[in-house]
């Protein structure tokens, strides 16, 4: 959707329309999913057994485990065929360069990073796919279900396009999400949603980066 580090909008209208029409068919036309429900409401429906599927991030696994309901987890299906790809993001640790940093400070920073990686099994239990290969390849992780069911997502993960306004919880996601949400509730037609996305993203790409 974005190119040149978030300075150009390259939205493919045809593909976007195909996707939006598919999503609209699920909620508005075939009524397989409720059109008007909020995040917590969808969770409540699934937890109470009122809905058969729940499409969400893996982090909610603990909610459903606490609710003590029978469920399993799997990869997002490959709806349109072709090469499999899923949107994902990850927790990334950035160590800014600090001139005059002592060896001890560097050791502490790296030690902190190591401590997080050492806890990879805990992260896995919380639903995340561990990036730390010794854990990802271990038998213990492979036996952890339903978390290990979707480990292949890590190989097919596609991050949000880079840009100063992009990233997890960013303006990019808010702009895209509100347009897509509007299609799902029936408020916006796919064409109107695409126009809205394009307009808002163009405004953002035209704004000089403050970072």
């Amino acid at each position: 959707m974005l190119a040149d580090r978030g300075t150009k909008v390259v939205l493919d209208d045809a593909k976007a329309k195909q996707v939006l029409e598919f999503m609209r068919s699920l909620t508005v036309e075939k009524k397989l999913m409720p059109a008007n429900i909020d995040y917590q409401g969808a969770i409540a429906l699934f937890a109470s057994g009122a809905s058969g599927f729940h499409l969400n991030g893996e982090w909610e696994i603990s909610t459903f485990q606490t609710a003590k309901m029978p469920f399993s987890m799997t990869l997002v299906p490959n709806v349109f065929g072709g090469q499999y790809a899923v949107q994902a993001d990850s927790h990334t640790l950035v160590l800014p360069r600090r001139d005059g940093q002592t060896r001890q400070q560097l050791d502490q920073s790296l030690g902190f990073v190591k401590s997080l990686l050492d806890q990879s099994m805990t992260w896995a239990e919380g639903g995340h796919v561990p990036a730390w290969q010794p854990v990802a390849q271990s038998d213990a992780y492979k036996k952890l279900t339903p978390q290990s069911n979707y480990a292949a997502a890590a190989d097919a993960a596609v991050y949000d396009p880079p840009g100063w306004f992009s990233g997890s919880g960013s303006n990019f996601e808010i702009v895209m999400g509100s347009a897509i949400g509007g299609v799902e509730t029936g408020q916006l037609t796919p064409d109107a949603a695409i126009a809205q996305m394009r307009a808002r993203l163009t405004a953002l790409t035209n704004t000089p980066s403050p970072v």
Partner: protein
Amino acid sequence: MTTVADTRPQHSAPGTVTRDSIDRRIKLFNATCAGVLIAFALLWLVPIAWTIDTAFKPNAETTNPTWAIHDPTLASFRTLLAQGDIWNWYASSFIISTASAAGTVLTASMAAFALSRMRFRFRWVVFWFILIGIMIPHQALIVPQFREVSAMHLLNTYLAVILPQIPLAIAVFIFKQFFDGVPRDLDEAARVDGAGFFRTYWRVVMPLSRPVVSAVAIFTFVWSWNNLLWPLLVLSNPKLMTIPVGIATVQGSYGIRYADTMAFAILGALPLVLLFIFFQRRIVEGIAGTGLKG
């Protein structure tokens, strides 16, 4: 207050307006008014009643709720109080609000005393300088204030919230208006006895100003306690957050644990509700007094 002599006939031929029939009409009218108001008041209480009702249920019962509580429990309250964060938030809110209220009362009353009692050349300049402050909406200043507080290295400290909340121009005017009405002879008497201005302020005028001091103190305390936008910006350390910031930050993460969420709401409101119950009359008098003086 004079009473007007009532010359309407008490009893008279049927069909004419009598004092009795007017009294009865008035009584009926009053009763209707009371009835309508009671109905609305009960409606007004419903959201709070529903909140309390939900908080005493186990979480599982909240996904299909009725007014009846099948399994009353304090579990939600226990969960929240055991969590630890809420105690930090209570402390934070209490410290910040008390300091802000005290700071505002002291600084504003001192400045008002100077403006009311003392003569100096630039008195009117200062007066108008502070007057414009009443019209400045504090919320518009969040961006530059944030930069300033950040440059002072005060982010994530209580001072970051307290200091910008203390200078309240309207408080200066409320105090000044009150002081203007306090007779000067007491001041003069004190000064003849050799008291300086500060002692006159502290020993003579302030003790006479209890109603306005308590009104300003209570209002600043409540306003500071409930302030969300500014503390939200400058307090990102969960240990320092005030109650509203804490609630705003974690409210999404309770998910479908609605009983916990409602218990959280009750615990968040409890300190102010208790304050209100104890100081009800003062608060109401405060609003009425300062409001009508316009």
